[in-house]
């Protein structure tokens, strides 16, 4: 019935027409309010108080309410409101604390009706009762709200907000007796107009002042609040506790909020500082405004929907001294400019991709080319017919999954957990890590570790058993070849000039090659023949080899009957072409037949696994004895680390960096190191390997990294008695002066490490609890909980 009558009033007049327009005011506006006939608007500010009629094409000034020659602070308006029942009644809030009512029906030029000077400080807001003709509410800086009956000379009742300044008061539209008030300290209070002694309900809505609130015109109990913390929140007040339903994050503090008529989820906001636009938000879509009005050149101070049942006309006043009528159809819609595309890589190599439907539709029409092992899956968002913006933001999501097994990053996790990075001599660390890598089937990495050990540790310490193991069968089948390319002419001095072993053996290096414990695989598809022409190739090495191709000399294998050391060729692809191979677990990437790898043949020539799947370089004993200083290799090691890092195996790069420590650090610039560290730590954290990541942080020498785990090391605790945060110390509460953290075992205060059960929250000294739980599984406090300590 009520609804019916309102609709008729709405339709009683002719339908609203108009256009986007604005008019210049003489002074900045602080607030505006619309008459119920939707044909007039009042603008109030420090030095302006005028009524404009809204015509088809323009605003026409109808009345200036600032009469008299002398300026009065009573006319310096902070807020203005037009009664929604009575076309002749207005109220203003003055900055000096006066509430003034105006009666347009007065015959004289001065329309001022009544003056209430009860507030001691600025009045921030006035509000008429939506249905009652004579009830006016005001909220002031002095912390009080007053309810006036216009038939009387003074206030009917006073509501105290407990000394905090009131920023907004709003009568509920549906509940006759209820009003909401918002405060400078972030609280929102709900009052019953009949009970001035205490508020019905209070809750903290925002961090910092709550500047505005607005009741939903249709939904009973929905209240929107806006605050200095740049948020608009929608609360459901019908439940026992006020429940936050929606939250919109804007870019500046929210000065005003107004629900849009006839659109259940829309509200308009404007900001107090910096941002001059008016936004209309759909609260269900809090990230992109549904519409935006950009007419104003200074902050907007007042907004009002022109008619309570017409969603397309918005009026606004601004500090730039202008009054605007905005038409919704003229609004700019940021959604249209947004790119609804997104791409995300999953932890295990999955790829998700969202794009405009039109784009995806065209794409999916294409057949996935054959042989592709990735399976695109398409999802389409289910469209909710109720959603008004279905047309604006429809996008399709596709997910590409890795082939089961192939994309598993299990090796990464295992490696991370098992690697030893410090605490033992270098040789042991290298051996350990090599072993780990080998067990995980990552032979190249294993080999690298072994070689690092050889480079940096004195050779005498190399346990031959280990070596045998590492070279394994590869060396045995390589043996016959060894003699054939001894480097006879190698002088100790020249030795440092990297002898090349160019061995273009056929690397049909399928995965079979991985089995052999030998070496790396990246490789070219070499048409050259078998090991027989190895010697020629060796000679060829210098001819073709570029200057920068350095090879690691690996005096690896000391055979009893072999006077020379046999070096399994461990060549690292130093060239970018190789590095170009798609990032991914490296033991997968080197399909010998993959076209781009073969394309890189020429440059990758240095990587020369033999037919037996690895190449050997033998060095005369003299060379070995010359004891190349580890420094000599540092360039090589550096390049190797770069290679690993660029291949995507930043784990290897960082681990080697940590294990070798000072030996290589100086060769790699700080920034690169930092970059590696951060990527590795990021990866570790994605896999939730917190301990490893912390260890890495701790072991890093880069300042930027090691300070990572010194940030936010504060643990905030609340007192166990009064539940208040304990600010100064962790064990004594300032408020209730009791010791909060008592040890359940020794009943003393715990000042150091405090451990507690997450089940029963009893705890105490770390040592005591550990000891206790060794002997008993029950809680030491006697609460009967079965505590666990791990």
């Amino acid at each position, binding site marked *: 019935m009520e609804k019916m009558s309102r609709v008729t009033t709405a339709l009683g007049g002719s339908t609203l027409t108009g256009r986007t327009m604005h008019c210049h005011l003489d002074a900045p506006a602080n607030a505006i309010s619309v008459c119920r006939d939707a044909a007039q608007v009042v603008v109030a500010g420090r030095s302006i108080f005028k009524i404009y009629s809204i015509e088809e094409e323009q605003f026409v000034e109808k009345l200036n309410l600032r009469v008299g020659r002398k300026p009065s602070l009573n006319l310096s308006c902070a807020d203005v409101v037009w009664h929604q029942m009575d076309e002749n009644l207005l109220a203003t809030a*003055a900055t000096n*604390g006066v509430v003034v009512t105006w009666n347009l029906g007065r015959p004289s030029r001065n329309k001022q009706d009544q003056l209430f000077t009860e*507030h001691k400080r600025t009045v921030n807001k006035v509000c008429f009762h939506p249905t009652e003709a004579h009830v006016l509410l005001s909220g002031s800086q002095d912390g009080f709200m007053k309810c006036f009956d216009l038939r009387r000379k003074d206030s009917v009742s006073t509501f105290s907000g407990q000394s905090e300044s009131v920023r907004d008061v709003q009568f509920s539209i549906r509940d006759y007796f209820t009003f909401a008030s918002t405060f400078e300290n972030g609280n929102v209070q709900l009052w019953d107009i009949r009970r001035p002694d205490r508020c019905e309900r209070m809750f903290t809505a925002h961090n910092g002042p709550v*500047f505005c609130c607005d009741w939903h015109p249709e939904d009973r109990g929905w209240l929107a609040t806006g605050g200095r913390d740049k948020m608009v929140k929608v609360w459901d007040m019908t439940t026992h506790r006020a429940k936050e339903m929606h939250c919109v994050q804007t870019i500046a503090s929210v000065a005003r909020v107004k629900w849009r008529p006839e659109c259940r989820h829309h509200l308009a906001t404007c900001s107090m500082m910096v941002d001059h636009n008016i936004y209309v938000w759909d609260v269900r879509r809090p990230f992109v405004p549904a519409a935006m009005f950009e007419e104003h050149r200074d902050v907007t101070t007042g907004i009002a929907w022109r008619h309570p049942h017409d969603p397309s006309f918005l009026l606004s006043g601004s500090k730039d001294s202008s009054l605007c009528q905005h038409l919704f159809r003229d609004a700019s819609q940021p959604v249209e400019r947004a790119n609804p595309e997104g791409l995300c890589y999953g932890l295990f190599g999955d790829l998700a991709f969202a794009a405009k439907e039109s784009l995806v539709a065209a794409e999916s029409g294409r057949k996935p080319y054959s042989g592709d092992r990735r399976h695109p899956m398409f999802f389409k968002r289910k469209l909710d017919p109720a959603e008004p913006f279905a047309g604006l933001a429809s996008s399709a999501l596709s997910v590409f999954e890795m082939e089961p097994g192939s994309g598993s990053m299990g090796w990464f996790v295992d490696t991370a957990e098992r690697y030893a990075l410090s605490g033992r001599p270098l040789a042991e660390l290298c051996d350990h890590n090599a072993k780990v890598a080998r067990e995980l089937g990552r032979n190249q990495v294993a080999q690298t570790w072994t070689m690092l050990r050889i480079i940096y540790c004195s050779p005498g310490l190399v346990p031959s058993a280990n070596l045998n193991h590492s070279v394994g069968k590869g060396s045995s089948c390589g043996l016959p070849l060894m003699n054939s390319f001894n480097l006879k002419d190698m002088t100790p001095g020249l030795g440092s000039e990297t002898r090349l072993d160019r061995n273009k053996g056929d690397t049909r290096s399928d995965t079979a090659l991985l089995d052999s414990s030998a070496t790396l695989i990246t490789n070219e598809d070499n048409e050259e023949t078998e090991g027989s022409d190895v010697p020629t190739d060796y000679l060829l090495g210098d001819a073709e080899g570029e200057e920068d191709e350095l090879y690691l000399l690996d005096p690896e294998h000391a055979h009893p009957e072999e006077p020379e050391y046999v070096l399994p060729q461990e060549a690292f692809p130093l060239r970018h072409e190789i590095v170009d191979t798609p990032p991914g677990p490296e033991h997968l990437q080197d399909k010998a037949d993959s076209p781009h790898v073969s394309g890189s043949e020429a440059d990758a020539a240095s990587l020369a696994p033999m037919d037996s799947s690895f190449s050997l370089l033998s060095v005369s004993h003299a060379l070995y004895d010359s004891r190349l200083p580890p420094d000599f290799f540092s360039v090589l090691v550096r390049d190797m680390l770069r290679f690993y890092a660029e291949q995507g195996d930043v784990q290897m790069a960082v681990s080697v960096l940590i294990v070798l420590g000072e030996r290589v650090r100086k060769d790699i610039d700080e920034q690169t190191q930092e970059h590696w560290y951060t990527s590795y730590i990021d990866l570790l954290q994605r896999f939730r390997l917190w301990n490893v990541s912390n260890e890495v942080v701790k072991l890093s020498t880069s300042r930027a990294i090691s300070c990572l785990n010194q940030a936010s090391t504060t643990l905030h605790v609340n007192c166990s008695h009064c539940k208040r945060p304990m600010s100064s110390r962790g064990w004594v509460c300032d408020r209730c002066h009791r010791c909060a953290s008592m040890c359940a075992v020794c009943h003393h205060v715990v000042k150091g490490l405090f451990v507690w059960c997450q089940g029963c929250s009893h705890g105490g000294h770390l040592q005591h609890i550990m000891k206790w739980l060794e002997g008993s599984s029950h809680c030491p406090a006697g609460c009967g909980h079965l505590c666990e300590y791990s």
Partner: protein
Amino acid sequence: MAEGENEVRWDGLCSRDSTTRETALENIRQIILRKTEYLRSVKETPCRPSDGLSNTVSLDGLNKLLAHLLMLSKRCPFKDVREKSEFILKSIQELGIRIPRPLGHGPSRFIPEKEILQVGSEDAQMHALFADSFAALGRLDNITLVMVFHPQYLESFLKTQHYLLQMDGPLPLHYRHYIGIMAAARHQCSYLVNLHVNDFLHVGGDPKWLNGLENAPQKLQNLGELNKVLAHRPWLITKEHIEGLLKAEEHSWSLAELVHAVVLLTHYHSLASFTFGCGISPEIHCDGGHTFRPPSVSNYCICDITNGNHSVDEMQVNSAGNVSVSDSFFEVEALMEKMRQLQECRDEEEASQEEMASRFEIEKRESMFVFSSDDEEVTPARDVSRHFEDTSYGYKDFSRHGMHVPTFRVQDYCWEDHGYSLVNRLYPDVGQLIDEKFHIAYNLTYNTMAMHKDVDTSMLRRAIWNYIHCMFGIRYDDYDYGEINQLLDRSFKVYIKTVVCTPEKVTKRMYDSFWRQFKHSEKVHVNLLLIEARMQAELLYALRAITRYMT
């Protein structure tokens, strides 16, 4: 002697772990002993001319160390460090080396030392504050020791200062200290200048800059003008000033940097006010804080000259501040009576609009003439003046000429609504910190007045706050400026005016002659109100100009 091994590392002492402190101290002791040995051996051998120089240098170095130790023995919040430092000093003395002794009488010249909390006798909460401060700065400065009258405020103050100087921010560390020096030098506050010169060098600042602003980068030189206006006539700041800084080609400031700089400038302007307002003495380890000589009359420090505390000055200064002694006894009662009256009759007496407006104007105009009558121009010590080029530009000379201060309406641009949002947008978190500090300073009360308890002092506090804003032309529409005249007497106004506008002219007599019945802690409380109100006033003008520039 290799410098490396004798490099004294004081930072170990800031640790909360007593064993770390112990080792650090032991280290220091070793170094000092070595230096002493070296000096003695040099002394015993006949002095060759070439040795002379290095000898003085190392003696200087030793003396610096000893002065620092002296400071630690008095001001370190950790008992073990205090005792051990004293012990080291004693043992050195026994070796025949002259050790320094502190000059002056505690942290403040205005407040007797016994009124001020002794380090070591603080309660747990204060100890935590001290430890925090010591850990951050490696010292416990006199400002902290005076502010600790109001620990709640001190905590917020230290947090803010720590954030401004040491935490994330758009400006490099040495810039921050240099800006602090620039700001403090505007008021010839050698105390703050000395402190920050040390810090500036410590964070790797170029010592050349200290020879004057013209040696600093152009970018900082550009800031000089803003510094000057902000310190003395903030209402003259226009968006052109801001534009000039932001659009200076390669020397231009970014908005975020500018906000950081503005916050620093205002912070140090008001801190200079506090330093003079409470008569903070030089730090023990800085020049003028200690002496190796027995006391002598001729020994005074720069501070004393620049702020007119030199004994000769004191005789002439400030006859206006005199109130006859007999009045003083009833001062408190009279003040309370007035507050009661105002409370009661506020509703009855209804002043007209014009009346209210004119009261503000009167107060504003009068505030210009509330001044001590001393005429002599205090020549600033060279040492400090190098940081600002235009010494003649002060608050005073405009008030003489009766320049018109335009009215700034707080209802149109206030800290809570506008200033906060702007600062927080451009320099995240700082808005929050300063906001908290303002709140605490404004709302701080113990409900006492001198010997009376349970007094609602909000009216008095608001009068002081608004009076300061009134001097800067900031008007509250909802305040009756008649109240100020009722509540603040002339000597108090003189003090406020001097502290806020020309802090370097504050004298002990001014400090003593207002509110004679009140406790020192209450006078410090007044100072906190003064400095926060001043800071807010300056910030409001600067931020309004930035806002205008942005729109």
